[in-house]
């Protein structure tokens, strides 16, 4: 589970300090300590959901719900237009002498079309936003973040005490410390 931030291309960012954890209790303690010290955590990469992490690092609520709503509106409009065109405008269809205008029998088509567009739209936007589109090379800070390691990324700024951050990470049980800048990884320990 990656908690996504706005700019996803890590190589276009400042130098990033990377800490690797094995145990989620230590990770939670580290994240709490870092946030309490006023340090903004860029993101945390974990292979499974860690409860409470999103609140600690003040992650924003996902905007996927809004995308779902707009996809639903598009789907509804599309399907209503389609069925109106097919069974009223292009070839007026007489089924059991039911009226031609908007009828309850349209509702399954409208509903299914809405659901279809919402599901596909949400999946597409989710993959696109997470850079899981074919052809895009991802920058994985530590390959084990998809396996059993928990990885914290802190983006440095000019007025940041890097040493203090690294000490804090180490004190809270980080197994490894690395830095990542312009696509180059350096192991610090």
């Amino acid at each position, binding site marked *: 589970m990656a908690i996504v931030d706005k700019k996803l291309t890590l190589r276009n960012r400042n130098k990033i300090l990377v800490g690797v954890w094995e145990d989620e209790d230590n990770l*939670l303690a580290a994240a709490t300590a870092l946030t309490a010290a006023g340090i903004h955590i860029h993101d945390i990469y974990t292979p499974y959901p860690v409860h*409470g992490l*999103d*609140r600690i690092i003040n992650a*924003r*609520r*996902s905007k996927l719900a809004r995308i779902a709503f707009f996809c639903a509106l598009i789907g509804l409009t599309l399907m209503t237009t389609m069925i109106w065109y097919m069974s009223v405008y292009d070839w007026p269809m007489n089924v*059991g002498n039911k009226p031609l205008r908007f009828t*309850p*029998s349209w509702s399954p088509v409208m509903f299914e079309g809405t659901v279809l567009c919402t599901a596909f739209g949400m999946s597409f936007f989710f993959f696109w936003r997470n850079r899981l589109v074919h052809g895009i090379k991802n920058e994985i800070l530590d390959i084990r973040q998809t396996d059993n390691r928990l990885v914290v990324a802190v983006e440095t700024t000019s007025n940041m005490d890097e040493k203090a951050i690294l000490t804090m990470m180490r004190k809270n049980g980080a197994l490894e410390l690395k830095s990542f800048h312009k696509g180059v990884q350096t192991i610090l320990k």
Partner: protein
Amino acid sequence: MGHGHNHIEVKQEQFVFSPKAKRFSIILMIVGLVFAGIGIFTLGGSDNSHAQKSSNVNHKTESLSAQPHSKHDQNSGTAVSQTKENHLIGEESHGNEPNEKFGPRMVFRPSEKPASTHIWANLLIVGYFFLMISLASVMWYTIQHVANAGWSVAIKRVPEAMMTFIPIGFIVLMIALYFGKDEIYHWVHYEHLGLKPGDAGYDKILAGKSGFLNSTMLFAFPTVLVSIYYLLMRKLRSLSVEEDTATKGDASFFKRSIRFSAAYTVLFGFTMSVLVWFVVMSVDAHWYSTIFGVYNFITHWVTSITIIAFIVAYLKKEGYLGVVSNEHMHDLGKFMFAFTVFWAYLWWSQYLLIWYAQIPEEMAYYQLRFEDYKFNFLLNFLVCFVIPFLGLLMRSAKRNRYVLGIVGSIMIVGHYHDVWLMVFPGIFGPGMQFGFLELGTFLLFAGIFIFWVFTALTKRGLIATNHPYIEESVNHDVGV
């Protein structure tokens, strides 16, 4: 909120039924009684006006007499002349009414039913409604067990208290059935006539159903079913309270609860429809719908969850349930929202298929409700689906107990009105209104329900402190 593996010692709480809440429930009962009294008092007057109004509408009284106790007059001259007269009225006013070609349709004028029918019919729906709510709360409880759900453990004493209302709902239902069956169900009345094939007024459909749909079964089936539900409920309740005093970490009660829960879930899921067929669907005995049982279940299921949310919100407001947070309210809100949509799905499925197929014997149900009860029919969809759907759509709405309270109140009354719309047009024909008597009966029993359930809440600790999943429930977090 604790995070991760914080070990929390959960404190037991003891609910006290405050004098304020007691006063509120008693006031509800008194207001209900007064409203019901006004309703009964005005029955005669309103009936006349209905009769006048309804003379414009086609009321074709079938060869069965409208007077339940006039069975001996059935084959005599008076009944024949009555039928003729009605036939004439029908020809005069609405000769081209579609019913004419669709054949038998059981329609009575409200004025043709004695006042007692109104009372029995109201007791029937109120007893049925609260019985089904209590049974649905058991279902909710057992599903939590079968699904191995951890989040709901902190609030499990609320459905546990609601379950105790089963006998009251059942007794009220049985009283209504015992005294009012001849007036409520036209097939019971038909049964007394003892007609043979070839007799005037012989009804092939009712005769064909009489092996199942007869007065013996009407009492036998619900009694047997509810007795089994009741015994399982008692067992689940006792397992839960025994767990409190057991040694710390003893999961045997929980494991046994799962077994009994599985039994109840399967049994109730399969047999609940039979209860619905006898009590509600047989009001329109010529008509049938295969989805009716599920539709009734979902009506009471969503109401039951709303009431659970209400009681949890009340307990939170009074400072109880310290371990319950907005996260739990959010999940209850999701339950309400999800099953509101499911209610609409079933409501619409039943309507859509009947509308499309246009088979006369299926349409009779909606013909009456859509033509003569258009306002109630559309209002039903508005209060049971549109308002809860829009009201609970937002995440913030589900996490706000005041929004839940407002939307939930509309839903509870709306679903009671839904049951009313299933039963009353079938008994009385066109021209009924959801009036003082209906509202009064509902308020009276709402008061009794609150009194009974809150008393049951005081009987045991408010939190299942010894439950294996209590810690998971305390740490429940649905995320940002």
